[in-house]
């Protein structure tokens, strides 16, 4: 079932549309759990042995696996159904948003200032190519109505369907899990200024404000529409946050102005060159003792070839062109390229905070990071992956 949005920008979709969203969400759940499990079994039992015989060795890389799987009928149906489900996610929400847009704008204006948050747009900002040239994860309409909250609404409503129950009741499980990991793992660390880079509608930005009451929380993104939505959404939820239209590779903040620089599901949307520029900027704006922390997909080098291939499906078929190049990186080296010291590197996996008791989560943060085929993957046994570095 899609998550019902719990704030004033919620769109009232007609009953038939809600039923369609139910279907799409269930279809995604089926693809990501049942079909994915079937596909892995099919690989292990049939495809891998045939591949090993043909190559004279087991599959060594995800390209070996991908090449072999391309000819497999199960993979074709898995991919085809998953691709269609992705398109159907957006198609199930766009018409309702279009119809509701004038009224939504009025509601946004009415609620946006309720919590004391601010919105600072920069109409002169040059939008980077990874935003202007690609409809990332097949989401249409990012630039269709930049002076409205439309793209934010498409993302929020789409995620409610897309997440198929994997991202929490308020679609903020990533932010809540990461912020609570830091809070529980490092109880003496008390950040006062927190930055979320590439924040979109602020799902995960606000989690930091909830975890660290009293901290000043700032979110940046290059797209004005998602920020308009983020600002109004935060106002509606009664959480103060400050949103700026800004490029993470060129921050307008002074040196040493944050204690945490956070990102989630962000690095894999950028070129490696831009990730390094972002990390250098993060290093610059962090105070000594501050923390860069990114929620991301796990690195390919930690995974078996099949699991690498499985996660990089998005790169090949879901308009995520930078995904694999990022995941092929050595993450500690990336943070070093930004100016962080090798010994200050940090990485971890966490279970889903909003799905468990706080006390059980507090115990879980002390377990060592274990990366496997389930890490970062939307499935029943999901664990989020995080990495970053402390600034000296």
């Amino acid at each position: 079932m899609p998550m019902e949005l719990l704030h004033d920008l919620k769109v009232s979709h007609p009953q038939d549309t809600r039923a369609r969203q139910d279907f799409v969400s269930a279809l995604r759940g089926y693809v990501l759990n049942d079909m994915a499990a079937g596909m892995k079994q099919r690989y292990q039992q049939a495809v891998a042995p045939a591949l090993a015989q043909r190559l004279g060795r087991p599959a060594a890389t995800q390209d070996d696996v991908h090449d072999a799987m391309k000819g497999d009928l199960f993979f074709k149906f898995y991919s085809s159904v998953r691709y269609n489900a992705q398109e159907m996610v957006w198609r199930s929400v766009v018409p309702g948003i279009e119809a509701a847009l004038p009224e939504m704008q009025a509601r946004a204006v009415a609620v946006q200032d309720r919590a004391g948050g601010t919105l600072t747009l920069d109409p002169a900002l040059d939008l980077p190519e990874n935003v202007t040239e690609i409809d990332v994860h097949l989401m249409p309409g990012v630039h269709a109505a930049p002076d409205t909250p439309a793209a934010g609404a498409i993302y929020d409503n789409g995620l409610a369907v897309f997440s198929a129950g994997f991202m929490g009741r308020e679609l903020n499980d990533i932010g809540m899990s990461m912020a609570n990991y830091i809070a529980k793992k490092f109880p003496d660390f008390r950040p006062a200024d927190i930055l979320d880079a590439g924040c979109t509608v602020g799902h995960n930005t606000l989690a930091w404000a909830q975890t660290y009451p009293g901290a000043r929380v700032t979110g940046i993104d290059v797209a004005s529409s998602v920020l308009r939505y983020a600002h109004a959404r935060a106002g509606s939820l009664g959480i103060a946050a400050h949103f700026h239209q800004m490029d993470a590779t060129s921050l307008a903040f002074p040196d040493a102005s944050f204690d945490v620089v956070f990102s989630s599901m962000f690095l894999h949307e950028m070129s490696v060159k831009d990730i390094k520029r972002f990390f250098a900027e993060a290093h610059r704006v962090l105070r000594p003792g501050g923390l860069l922390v990114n929620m991301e997909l796990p690195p390919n080098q930690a995974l078996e070839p099949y699991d690498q291939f499985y996660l990089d499906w998005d790169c090949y078929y879901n308009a995520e062109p930078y995904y694999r190049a990022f995941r092929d990186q050595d993450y500690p080296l990336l943070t070093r390229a930004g100016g962080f010291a090798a010994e200050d590197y940090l990485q971890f996996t966490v279970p889903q905070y909003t799905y468990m008791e706080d006390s059980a989560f507090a115990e879980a943060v002390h377990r060592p990071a274990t990366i496997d085929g389930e890490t970062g993957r939307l499935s029943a046994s999901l664990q989020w992956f995080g990495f970053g570095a402390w600034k000296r």
Partner: protein
Amino acid sequence: MSVLPLDAAGKRPAFFDEPGMDQLVSMMLELAAELWVVKERVFVLESVLGQQGMAARDAVEAYVPTPEEQQTLAAMRATMTAQLFRTLARDHRPVNT
């Protein structure tokens, strides 16, 4: 006129070698979605009727169509089946009959 596009930019990938298979999967999933929409609507309709004192779900379960209705349903099913297999049917009977 609509402002927000429904389709993402870029070319759709082809997963199947046979021309048309990818489109067929899309059509099949759209049909499945529409079928679900109808099923959910019927369910809701029965619930709404039930709340208003008409035990529609039970009545539907217990309902026995009259002989006349059975004939009508049989004709509807035959039409639907013929439409479903109309392209196959072209191969074993003259097109213009």
